């Protein structure tokens, strides 16, 4: 029983991170109907930005909340800028083109960042700086809850609440929802669609940046290809919940994290990565619009 609870705690943590990254995918898909393959590399760059920033500012010499938040800030800013650059120079020129072209471009950007990362950062893994020191917070029998676990979960949840408020209760959030629904109608209502899309990329990329620092805390090994696998799983999570649907991304992320943890804990860790694809195929076979998504009726 206690083992189960430990797995659930771990699963929720993992799921929270998947959810953060999945939200980035789903937001961009909502406004552009584009699968932003490069999102996973933005995540990776965030981790490296914190790495170099930490070295620059000596953050790992003073582990603590200040260092942690500075690392977060560095990552968020870098990711936002990168996200904006990608949108402006790779996606915007293709705004009117067939969706396929943008999809291929997204793949190109993703690969470019991976390989450029290998050239610039070096292909061998680095260790994420210790911006925060871990300690056991409380123990209950076999269950151990670490500071990191609580930090990750609370930061993720706080961010999601903020995002929800932003989307549901602010004017810009409303504009984003409008653009997700219909690009053209939104323009006719006086919304500057380009600006909104930029905002969406900034928000989505920031979430990836936050996610990468949280992951860096618990799994400090970083390398230029680190985004691929987690990006793919987060993407599956977004599809699972219904791509384009924000609460769906959260639900999908948590489900993904929990099921992965259960597979590793009770079945075998060799097939943990295949789980993501297996889930993906199952979802697409039986409920392609995702758990919370709705099938769109095409006007003829």
């Amino acid at each position, binding site marked *: 029983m206690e083992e189960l609870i430990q797995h659930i705690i771990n699963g929720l943590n993992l799921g929270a991170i998947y959810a953060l990254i999945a939200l980035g995918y789903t937001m961009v898909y909502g406004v552009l109907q584009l*699968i932003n393959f490069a999102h996973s590399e933005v995540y990776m760059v965030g981790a490296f930005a914190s790495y170099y920033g930490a070295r620059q500012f000596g953050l790992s010499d003073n582990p603590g909340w200040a260092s942690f938040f500075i690392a977060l800030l560095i990552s968020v800013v870098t990711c936002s800028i990168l996200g904006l650059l990608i949108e402006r120079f*790779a996606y915007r*020129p*293709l705004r009117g*083109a*067939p*969706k*396929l*072209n*943008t*999809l*291929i*471009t997204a*793949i*190109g*950007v*993703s*690969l*470019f960042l*991976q*390989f*450029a990362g*290998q*050239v610039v950062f070096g292909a061998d893994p680095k260790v994420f700086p210790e911006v925060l020191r871990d300690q056991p917070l409380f123990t209950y029998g076999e269950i151990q809850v670490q500071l990191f676990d609580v930090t990750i979960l609370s930061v993720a949840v706080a961010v999601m609440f903020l995002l929800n408020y932003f989307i549901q209760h602010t004017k810009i959030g409303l504009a984003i929802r409008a653009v997700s629904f219909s690009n053209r109608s939104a323009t006719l209502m006086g919304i500057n669609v380009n600006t909104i899309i930029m905002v969406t990329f900034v928000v989505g990329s920031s979430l990836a940046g936050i996610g990468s620092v949280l992951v860096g805390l618990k799994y400090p090994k970083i390398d230029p290809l680190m985004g691929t696998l987690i990006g*793919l799983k987060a993407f*599956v999570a977004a*599809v699972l919940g219904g791509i384009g649907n924000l609460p769906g991304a959260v639900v999908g992320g948590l489900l993904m994290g929990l099921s992965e943890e259960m597979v590793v804990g009770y079945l075998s860790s*060799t*097939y943990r*990565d*295949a789980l993501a*694809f*297996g889930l*993906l*195929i199952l979802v*697409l*076979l039986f409920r*392609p619009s995702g758990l919370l998504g709705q099938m769109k009726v*095409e006007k*003829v």
Partner: protein
Amino acid sequence: MKMWRGWLLVIAAALVVSTVSEFALNAYLQQILYYIAINIMLAASLNLVSGFCGQFSLGHAGFMAVGAYVSALISLNFQPFADPHFAFPFYALAGGLCAAAAGFLVGMPSLRLRGDYLAIVSLGFGEIIRVVLLNLEVVGGARGLYGIPGASDFWACFHMFFWAGATILLLWRLVHSSYGRAFLSVREDEIASECMGINTTRIKVKAFVISSFFAGAAGALFAQTTNSLNPASFQFVKSVDVVIMMVLGGMGSLTGSIVGAVLVTILPEALRPLQEYTGVDLRMVIYSATLIFLMIWRSEGLLGSREWTWFWRQRAARS
């Protein structure tokens, strides 16, 4: 007579290439030539389903892997002829057929849906195949398979280019037929196509299965020429490779697929001195940057949807 003209051309071309290869090229260049043949098959087959039929697939490496491993397993355990050369076509056929079956299983459920779904499912399929192969001991897991029967002589080269030529010939005929028009109609406007009586799901699956067959056969040839296999050769990057070949040549142009395959095979080798000079592998960086530039500035690739016959006609018109 039109029936046989194509085949004669294929045989003649394969003979010419093999002769040049045997007498004018060293082992290194020969290997590049073999990869060109394989890549032509991959690019052309992907073009059928993505360029002509409009169903974007990101899992071509998966079908290549199925064909490669199946034919390798068969050839390792079953050698019916004294001279292995006679068996090569059958191994390739077996690989192709199994890949086609896989294509059917993957295509049937996912092609019912419209939109981006095939891209995602095919990507997932490619990755699942790789992970399964990585974990399956009977195919050697991460170490892979060794000592696969194959050859690098005149007849092996002929065999490979015969397959490459046959792929182009058969796909050409397919595309210039009522089925080809059906494929194109699905790409152009799936709803209109269905209202004109086309069973769009069935047509898409047909394209997908035929495409997978040739990808599998290409995989089998790959196994025969490298004599060893491991899952690392069939990662997502390989699927992207094929996408680049197809896009560079022109989606919807078989001639373009040949051009794209040749360029993408040769370019990394041509850039190798650069890598040795700078000590850094810039090839994939250049690759991916090329893809981005292509999509933004010339998404129709080098040939667009034109075939060599178009250029022929232009010359005729001018003279």
